[in-house]
């Protein structure tokens, strides 16, 4: 320094990581979350709405299918079979004497299937002749069609089992098929869907909300002001991650309590396992959100990227709605980089089977590894400058 330069006041060196600065940032972020209606909406209201939507509207079970029942015979056995259909809780029966009475219903979609109890049923049974009960289903709705087929077959089989021996009843029972479903005895799809819904909610909080709040700081110029202080990158990143990590865990807890109390879907495993999984999943989810916001510094672009790379894969490629095993091989390969994939399958394990740590730990490892990759990229990408 030349002689003409002034002697500048000596200042203490600023530590790279100062817990007090971090405390200031955490306090600010928490106040903002509490005051921001959209954060509360995404973290607590949206999860409940999603849970109800997914478990009721998206439910893959079919209950009370409208069915046309054509009874062409007047005999007591035919009446008994008709009564079996009418009394079944899965069917909403519209009785008829002739096929043409219900065929229109099948065409216009007001009926999902038709069962025909043929003429001379009693007489044929009495004479030991084979009897055919016809089941017509609406092939445009394959899921429902299968269901109608299966259940109608079951009703007929039940009825046949009750026939007096030697009156053709035996003809129906050479082999008895007795399927058993493990882990989800009633095959209620909501038990698959609740874990999926939790994963979606966590993606929203972890990725979408984080991407939005950081982009908002760039848009409003507050990031520029904070960067001009001695605050370090690590403090800024931790100051963002920690509050949303806590928010995410609270939302998970909320989801789990809501699904147990309101939807009657309890966890088979422990709360510890649930929270460990949620914590592991939040690492890549938050990492992705922060990464998006370092690339896109405005809220509109950030939300688009978050939905396209976070929300949609969580919905479509996580095994939540579509089974991964039935995807083409290249898509299956792609699911390995979707953190929600590991989260959904582990959550399903915890919800349906219990704490199978042998199955959970590899998934937790995979989520942490993906999170590590995101954080490494962020650390490399984030400089304490405004350089584009």
């Amino acid at each position: 320094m030349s002689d003409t330069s002034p002697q500048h006041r000596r200042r203490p060196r600023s530590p790279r990581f100062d817990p007090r600065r971090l405390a200031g940032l955490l306090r600010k972020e928490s106040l903002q979350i509490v005051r921001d209606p959209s954060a509360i909406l995404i973290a607590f209201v949206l999860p409940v709405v999603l849970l109800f939507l997914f478990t009721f509207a998206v439910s893959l079970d079919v209950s009370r299918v409208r069915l046309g029942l054509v009874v062409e015979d007047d005999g007591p056995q035919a009446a008994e079979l008709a009564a079996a259909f009418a009394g079944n809780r899965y069917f909403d029966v519209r009785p008829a004497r002739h096929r043409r009475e219900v065929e229109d219903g099948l065409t216009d979609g007001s009926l999902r299937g038709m069962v025909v109890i043929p003429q001379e049923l009693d007489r044929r049974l009495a004479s030991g002749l084979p009897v055919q009960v016809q089941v017509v289903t609406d092939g445009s709705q394959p899921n429902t069609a299968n269901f109608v087929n299966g259940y109608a077959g079951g009703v007929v089989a039940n009825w046949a089992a009750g026939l007096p021996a030697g009156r053709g009843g035996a003809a129906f029972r050479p082999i008895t098929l007795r399927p058993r479903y493990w882990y989800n005895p009633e095959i209620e799809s909501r038990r698959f869907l609740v874990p999926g819904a939790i994963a979606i909610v966590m993606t929203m909080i972890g990725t979408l909300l984080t991407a939005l709040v950081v982009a908002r700081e760039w848009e409003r110029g507050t990031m520029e002001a904070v960067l001009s202080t001695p605050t370090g990158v690590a403090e800024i990143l931790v100051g963002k991650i920690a509050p949303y990590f806590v928010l995410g865990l609270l939302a998970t807890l909320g989801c789990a309590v809501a699904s147990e109390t309101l939807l009657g879907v309890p966890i088979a495993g422990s709360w510890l396992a649930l929270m460990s999984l949620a914590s592991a999943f939040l690492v890549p989810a938050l990492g992705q959100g922060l990464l998006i916001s370092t690339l896109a510094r405005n809220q509109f672009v950030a939300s688009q990227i978050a939905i396209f790379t976070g929300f949609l894969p969580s919905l479509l490629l996580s095994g939540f709605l579509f089974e991964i095993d039935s995807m083409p091989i290249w898509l299956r390969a792609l699911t390995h980089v979707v953190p929600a994939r590991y989260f959904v399958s582990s959550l399903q394990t915890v919800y349906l089977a219990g704490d199978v740590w042998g199955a959970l730990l590899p998934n937790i490892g995979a989520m942490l590894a993906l999170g590590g990759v995101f954080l490494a990229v962020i650390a490399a990408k984030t400089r304490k400058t405004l350089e584009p």
Partner: protein
Amino acid sequence: MAQPIGSPTVGGNAIGGNAVEIRGLAKRFDTDEALAPFDADIAAGRLTGLVGPDGAGKTTLLRLLAALLKPTAGTARVAGHDVAAEPTQVRLVTGYMPQRFGLYEDLSVLENLRLYARLRGLRGKELTETFERLLRFTRLEPFTGRLAGRLSGGMKQKLGLACALMARPEVLLLDEPSVGVDPVSRQDLWRMVDELTGEGMAVLWSTAYLDEAERCDTVLLLNDGRVEYHGPPAELTQRLAGRSFRLTGEAEDRRRLLAEALDLPTVRDGVIQGASVRVVLTEGSDRASVDELAHGHGSVVEPAEARFEDAFVDLLGGGPGGHSAIAEKMEAVTLDAEMVVECRHLTKRFGDFTATDDATFQVRKGEIFGLLGPNGAGKSTTFKMLCGLLRPTAGEALVAGHDLRHAPGQAKLQLGYMAQKFSLYGLLSVRQNLEFFSGVYGLEGGLRKRRIREMVETFELGRFLDASPDLLPLGFKQRLALACSLMHRPPVLFLDEPTSGVDPLTRREFWTHINGLVRKGVTVLVTTHFMDEAEYCDRVALMYRSRIIALDAPDALKASAASAETPDPTMEEAFIALVEAADRRVGEEAA
């Protein structure tokens, strides 16, 4: 003040020493040269103005000095620390206020202060003392619990300043602190900055208002990434001594007088100033031809004091000629109504907030009428009601005799509208923008083609036809926006902040077009927060806190504010006096 706000020891930062040393500093974004290499020393204890239009490189320079950007070439040392090598040390000694406040609007005043205090490592007794001092200094004490988003523009800037001062900086970097601030709060900001420099702090104040340059100790004048001048503003103005003149006496056709004066080879620059015309001669020429011209118009030529803006225009190569090609192509406006725009008791309320309160005025045919006031005073709301973009809560508005409430379509066809920041479609080409706007105004077939061709020729847009408006030089962007609003030959033109942030040459070209149009009988309504822009208007309505507090010719407004101390006040001084008088009235009514 007993305790200093900034550096605790003046000795730490000797007044007159260099707080910032810049050597060959340059910044380039891809291929765009934001700042060309330059050298400069910025003195401690002085106010340095960073003056220039939008896009000149002011923000880039401040960000480089705050170590938020890395120099492409050269070095800058802030309080002895190199911005590239020691960014953290630089941040410890600088306070930086970005253009958009950098405040958390959902946090209260105190919460914002507390955050920055923590980020600056203050605690305990030091923290409470600093808070007290800053709150007293900024006079924000009564508002500590209020959310920052609910503060007025002036108070936001003061809070931003307080947050930047938390650093006890040696160098204070302020990016356009006076934008959106009413003249009274602006006075307050100047007072604070004066105190800070008095303690030895170096303050850099960036601004697009050239009149602010004259208040600075030193000026760094930037244009298009280049430092055009560095030194005391008076020194630059001094170069123009004896070349500025005022032509007074004949108010009736001052626009024609200006146009003819600008076409004289001896005239470098000229503007309208109230009822008179101000001209600057080219270097070395005498006033004979100006005298002759003035004589022909029956006006008197008197020497005027040179202004900083005159010097800037001179540096840039002088103002444009006096004739507007587009105005010459336009046929004279024929309108039956003598009063082109009328509003009576116009009021707009949003919830319990009254944005425009009982505005009544009339605009005559061929008049330039200005709505002047700080951001949030109600200018834009009033304007939008007159354009039919907002429905008045009470009162009525007529444009060219059509009531906006009953015949909004009829009224809208009579007006051309040029919005703030030009509002062109960046994803459409220049040609497509012209086609779109001509379609919107109902032009069809041969007429539409003819008008578009005419606009392209007169505004020389030919070589840009397939480019996006975003890529045009500012002056051409402005021409295109004007072309779009003139396509249907409207008898009334609404201009919303048409020249904010624009360099003085582009502004002069714009006003040449407007003056030309007015001479053809077009009526112009303009909103602005540029005080000197009001000088172009025939009459000005001053808006303050939703009300029109004064309405008169610019010269009359200035005269009404004249006092013993300021016999010849500027428009800004007049505004401050009128606002203070209005506040006193409100106070008396309350009492």
